[in-house]
């Protein structure tokens, strides 16, 4: 399940308002999202990419993809962490400025999914880096991914910029 939220998915307007307020407070109106694929099957990427299509248009909430982790506020991780991608994931995470958030997308990122027994796999994302929100689904729908991002922002731990 995603982290516990006070707003059911149906109360979308309320959620949007609250999140917009949270975004303004912490990130000065916008969040830059860096996506990293650490071993997914491409379905999660397809759904994450759909966030920017006219149906979901996550730019209206002040969310944008960024090419560089150095500009990113939030890391969206999809897939089970393979051995080859473990250090890449760490390097990407370490390159991000603080405060930073991590959202694990899809069953593989949550607990390894059907690939968890592979000897080529390190495990779920939280075995490598701390995760703020989990989004279940194979693949999760774009709305679920959005909900995950929003609950990560809403339930972010209190941090100071000089952490």
């Amino acid at each position, binding site marked *: 399940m995603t982290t516990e939220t006070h707003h059911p998915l149906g109360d979308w307007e309320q959620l949007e308002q609250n999140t917009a307020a949270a975004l303004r407070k912490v990130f000065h109106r916008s969040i830059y999202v860096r996506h990293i694929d650490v071993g997914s099957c491409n*379905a999660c990427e397809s759904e994450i990419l*759909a966030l920017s*299509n006219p149906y979901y248009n996550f730019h209206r909430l002040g969310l944008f993809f960024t090419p560089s982790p150095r500009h990113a506020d939030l890391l969206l991780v999809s897939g089970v962490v393979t051995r080859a991608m473990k250090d890449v994931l760490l390097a990407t995470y370490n390159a991000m400025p603080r405060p930073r958030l991590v959202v694990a997308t899809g069953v593989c990122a949550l607990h390894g999914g059907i690939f968890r027994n592979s000897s*080529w796999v390190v495990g779920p994302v939280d075995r490598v880096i701390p995760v703020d929100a989990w989004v279940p689904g194979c693949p999760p729908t774009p709305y679920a991914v959005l909900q995950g991002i929003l609950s990560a922002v809403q339930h972010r731990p209190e941090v100071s910029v000089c952490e």
Partner: protein
Amino acid sequence: MEDVQVHASQNRELDDNLQETQSSSADLVAWVVHHCLPVDKTNLPKAQLLYYGWVSYPSTPHLLAVLRDPVTGLVQWRFAQPPSDGRVPSLATHWPAASWIEREMWQTTGMEPVGHPDLQPILHPEEYLPEGMVTGAGVFRLPLGPVRADVSESGFFLFETIGEQIMHLQPQLFYKHRDIETLGIHQSIADALLLAERVSGTATVAHSMAFCQAAEQALHRTVPVEIKWERSLWLEMERLYNHAHDLAQLASAAGMSVGQAQLARVKEELLRLNGDLTGSRYLRGSVRMGDTCQVTWSQVRSEVESVLENADRRFTHFTNLLRHTPTFVDRLVGTGRVRKDWVDAYGLVGPVARACGASVDSRNESEIEQLAGYHICLPTRGQGDALDRFEVRVLEWHVSQGMIRKLLDLLCNGKELTNVGKYKDFPRPVSSTHPIHSDPPDGWGVGIVEGPRGRVCHVLQLKDDVYLNNSRIRGASSWIWPVFGLAVSNGNIQTDFPVIDASFGLSYAGTDR
């Protein structure tokens, strides 16, 4: 070790059955070369190589080659036990198409392809970084990936440029190698089907359909025609959303924001239709062993048709606009050209091969697809550049639209259309009981499906008709990746890369497995 011995004794019977298809590894390579390589440049290759590689049966790795005659549909199998020192002759010396799979075989099993022109590690990309090939004054090396711009899969590219000109590009994959083939071993058919669906998420139907075909062949099971119709329908639905996606990415790479947004909208509508019909936007669970999806087609038909019609209208409008936008066409003409001789040399498949004018399509041989009005789409130019790949996808979209309508008709009315019209001339399968006319070794099966990116092939061996003993997967992109680097460095500049990348539309996950 004990485990392996038990395993071996259980397979002694299978082993005996395989005697007639056994040969030495040198014979096997010679056999593939004899059957698959074109005699001269004017002749088409005589047979398609469906699978070449290794299988771990019963306890030690064996070479396996599966060929198909494209005219009769006859599939031939051959196994070979490698000599005790593990040195086997390299097929890649004769045929570059086998290069990547032999490198993987060498790293996984220790079998050494003797004479391989480029025997470098391909697995464990984190340990073996590419070193580049170009030397001299002014050479600039640009590493790109595995984390790169936009939302994309993880893969690494080493560019070597002189000025703007790309001299050489080395793609490095297998960052996402999950070893799905080994995971499938000892799994039940139902569990292995879940794995097959997740080889490449946007080719779920192609992989699960190939898996089911292979399992059904191994079980000697005949599939009712309704199931075949429904599977073909899912396959075409998958092709529609993939082509819309690829063209949206291509528009985006060329800076056409409106085209990108509108085609992404088409894709989203198709995904929602898939979700409404099967409960999964990516058609997971839609291809089942010996069962349909329980969709009442007569009830949903009009809705499906209206969604498809709307999507078709938007797709046609915006691809037409793109086609008549000089700035878009200019970016595509001559970009990332695939030379015609690479089609045979690398055994290319799918829209990339068809863009070169090669009539390579597995749907050619299937009676269901013929019935549904399939015909092969070749662009008029046949130059093999990004524009031709754009054209092929646009043409195929329209063919798939027509096929879905006919398949809906078949599913609703339950009777076959007798008139296949002007497509009668295409070769029809000899066998009427199974789409793959062949006689595999006992317990083995092969599934061949034309996915959105090309031919997907699953080879598997069942134990006691329940569990998998061997599972080999050959996705469409595996054939095309070795050519990608060549096409990028074929007279292109650095800024052409996004266009070429989008026009190929290759899958990383399907190749890494």
